């Protein structure tokens, strides 16, 4: 029988770091709560213990069933009976972390407490008496640093030893006499229903009137009345409700532990993190700093360092080296012209166009990984909480958006930690407004080829996403579907630390490699299909390879839908088809343009890369094209994730419809009003754009409907 050891602890206490260290896994470690939303399993790396499985549980503050993470962790601990628990406790926040420890101890499962971040505790000059803590809790306590990998083997060895001995954990903590009396009475009533190991924990939960436990126990009416009488008597004696009585007693117990085991340095100075946070999370400075940071990230990635390398990739690698070499090889072996065209114009043109942007992507992912690893991104969720709260969303909704800057799919999936259905649906609807990695090639292409690398284009794409989220939040919160107060958002800010080079580089490479792999699969298929559809057609009743792409099947299909985009300034079939292929994967927009505008051929002729593309767009139509493709319906993978998380076809259609309509209106207004201000005349499109702006402003500034708010409150209370 394999031995199962569960890792349980507060969010951000270092569980996943410990899990990776113990199992050799590479699980994502995030610096914000809700990163682990499902349990993960891995085998313990050990020469002596070959059959030990480590289970990483979501971070929780208690064993109450309030959040998805708590339900997942609690269900695992109480139903799947792990052989032992390693309770990972953040030593720099001992008092708060011990609340969960007191609850885990009651489960009766053998337990080891691993006090993490001992290096930080020592650096702060604080002292934790681990022996005394062990004596007080009634279980082994080990000091560790998961990040520095010190003490972790000792903790794992102790857990395996306890698991093998199967000695149940007997909590040292006793509640006051009145409560113990009540618990004993409840335990007696549970004798036939719950096995001895879990009886005390179940009795405490029944005493707290825990909804999930009460449901699972399915007491009959008579038994329910007897239990209620026991609880009621205790509540009258102690003049409080049952849940608060238990909570207070736990904190009194924790206070007594802290008094005996923890010595804080007498002259508590502000830590470096506190000093940085005074500026970075300052009420007035936080937002400008965030804007500046993200501006620099996108500016440096797309316009400076990234561009220098991308220029080489595009001009030299995919311009002077690969196409001529492949062409001369194909010619030398006598390959047919059409096959040469498929490989050069189709595959190298399309896939090469996408791969050309890998350097910019590497730089962007490097910056995002540094910001995540050092702890700044966790502050961004806190900063955005203030802003989001103003229009009825909490900072918890920003976490999916942070994750979505890599890829929209995990971003959408991360929204399941939002308990409130309305907030969750709204978060899912707006998450993909944040440009994901796959949209970077579109941003870089438009910025480089059509704006000559203008400094403002790339950062504006990111901020357009943020503004779209804020405006959508305001508009949607005023409707009956989404109205209501935001849920409270609690998160602790991890101390800043120097990014670990290995983590940052691995994160950057993993994301970039995944992008390269996608270019070699989905994008490759897409470019082959695009090449065939654009190069073949029916001319004079004959199916032939066309000389002019305007005669191909793709041009015919594109011409049917192109008029829809004419008011946005790019009503030609190439742009319309590129937008459509973006549904397969957003990189395909660039791949398609590469095939249709002869990326490889143009370079070979010595013309500027993307020179032909630049002649098809004006600055205004290019920016409108960029915004539409950033904000419209995401790729099929993300749509699938929306469908799964919404669990409703209607809501999925609403989300996709809203995003596309929103993108269309924004692109329309940009192009039409831009054209008006540029002196390009006044037309029917201008009138529609002005009306759209007026309606948009009305939706934005109309007052909140009190009736909707009341209805939402009633729904929540019910």
């Amino acid at each position: 029988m394999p031995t199962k050891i569960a890792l349980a602890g507060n969010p951000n206490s270092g569980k996943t770091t410990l899990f990776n260290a113990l199992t050799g896994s590479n699980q994502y470690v995030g610096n914000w709560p809700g990163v682990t939303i499902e349990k993960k399993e891995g085998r313990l790396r050990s020469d002596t213990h070959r059959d030990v499985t480590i289970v990483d549980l979501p971070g929780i503050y208690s064993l109450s069933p309030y959040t998805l993470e708590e339900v997942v962790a609690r269900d695992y601990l109480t139903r799947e009976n792990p052989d032992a628990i390693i309770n990972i406790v953040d030593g720099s926040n001992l008092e708060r972390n011990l609340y969960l420890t007191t609850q885990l101890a009651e489960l009766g499962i053998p337990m080891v407490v691993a006090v993490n971040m001992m290096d930080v505790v020592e650096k702060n000059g604080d002292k934790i008496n681990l022996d005394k803590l062990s004596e007080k809790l009634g279980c082994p306590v080990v000091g560790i640093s998961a990040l520095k990998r010190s003490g972790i083997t000792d903790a794992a060895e102790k857990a395996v030893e306890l698991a093998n001995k199967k000695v149940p954990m007997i909590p040292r903590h006793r509640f006051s006499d009145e409560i113990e009396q009540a618990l004993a009475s409840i335990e007696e009533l549970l004798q036939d229903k719950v096995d001895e190991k879990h009886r005390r924990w179940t009795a405490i939960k029944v005493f707290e009137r825990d909804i999930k436990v009460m449901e699972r126990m399915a007491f009959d009416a008579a038994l329910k009345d007897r239990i209620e009488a026991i609880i009621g008597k205790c509540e009258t004696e102690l003049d409080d409700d049952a849940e608060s009585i238990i909570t207070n007693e736990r904190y009194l117990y924790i206070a007594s532990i802290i008094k005996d085991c923890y010595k804080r340095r007498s002259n508590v100075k502000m830590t470096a993190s506190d000093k940085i946070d005074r500026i970075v999370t300052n009420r007035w400075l936080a937002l400008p700093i965030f804007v500046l940071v993200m501006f620099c990230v996108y500016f440096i990635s797309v316009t400076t360092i990234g561009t220098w390398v991308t220029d080489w990739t595009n001009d030299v690698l995919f311009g002077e080296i690969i196409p001529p070499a492949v062409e001369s090889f194909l010619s030398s072996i006598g390959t047919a012209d059409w096959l040469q065209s498929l490989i050069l114009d189709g595959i190298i043109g399309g896939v090469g166009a996408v791969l050309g942007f890998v350097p910019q992507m590497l730089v962007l992912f490097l910056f995002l990984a540094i910001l995540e690893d050092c702890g700044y991104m966790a502050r961004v969720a806190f900063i955005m909480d203030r802003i989001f709260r103003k229009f009825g969303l909490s900072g918890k909704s920003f976490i999916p958006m942070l994750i979505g800057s890599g890829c929209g799919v995990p971003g959408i999936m991360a929204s399941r930690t939002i308990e409130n259905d309305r907030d969750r649906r709204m978060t899912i609807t707006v998450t993909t407004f944040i440009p994901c990695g796959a949209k970077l090639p579109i941003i870089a292409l438009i910025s480089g080829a059509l704006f000559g690398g203008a400094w403002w284009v790339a950062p504006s794409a990111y901020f357009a996403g943020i503004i779209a989220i804020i405006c959508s939040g305001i508009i949607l919160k005023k409707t009956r579907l989404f109205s209501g107060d935001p849920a409270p958002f609690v998160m602790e800010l991890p101390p800043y630390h120097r990014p670990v080079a290995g983590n940052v580089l691995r994160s950057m490479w993993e994301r970039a490699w995944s992008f390269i792999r996608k270019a070699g699969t989905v994008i490759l298929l897409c470019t082959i299909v695009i090449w065939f559809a654009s190069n073949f057609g029916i001319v004079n009743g004959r199916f032939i390879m066309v000389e002019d792409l305007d005669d191909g099947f793709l041009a015919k299909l594109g011409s049917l839908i192109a008029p829809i985009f004419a008011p946005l300034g790019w009503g030609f079939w190439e742009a319309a088809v590129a937008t459509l292929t973006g549904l397969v994967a957003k990189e395909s927009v660039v791949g398609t343009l590469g095939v249709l505008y002869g990326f490889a051929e143009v370079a070979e002729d010595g013309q500027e890369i993307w020179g032909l593309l630049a002649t098809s767009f004006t600055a205004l139509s290019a920016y409108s094209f960029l915004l539409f493709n950033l904000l419209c319906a995401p790729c099929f993978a993300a749509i699938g994730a929306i469908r799964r998380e919404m669990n409703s076809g209607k809501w999925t259609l609403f989300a996709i419809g809203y995003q596309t309509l929103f993108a269309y209106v924004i692109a329309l207004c940009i192009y039409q009003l831009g054209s008006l201000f540029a002196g390009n005349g006044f037309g029917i499109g201008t009138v529609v754009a002005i009306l759209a702006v007026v309606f948009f402003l009305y939706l934005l500034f109309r007052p909140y409907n009190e009736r909707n708010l009341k209805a939402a409150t009633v729904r929540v209370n019910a």
Partner: protein
Amino acid sequence: MLQYIANHIADIIIVALLLAAVIGIIAGMARKKAKGQSISCGCGCSECPSASLCHPGKGDKE
């Protein structure tokens, strides 16, 4: 027939290689779909906080 094949052997080999690549890609995507995984998700599994939802119960590096 043999003459035609001999004349176009380079084309045949390249088309066969391309077809093999395309079939391999499609088969790989079908396998992923059958496993309930996303076929064009843009994130590496070890960099994805939700990887455990696509690969339930697995913690080892994908």
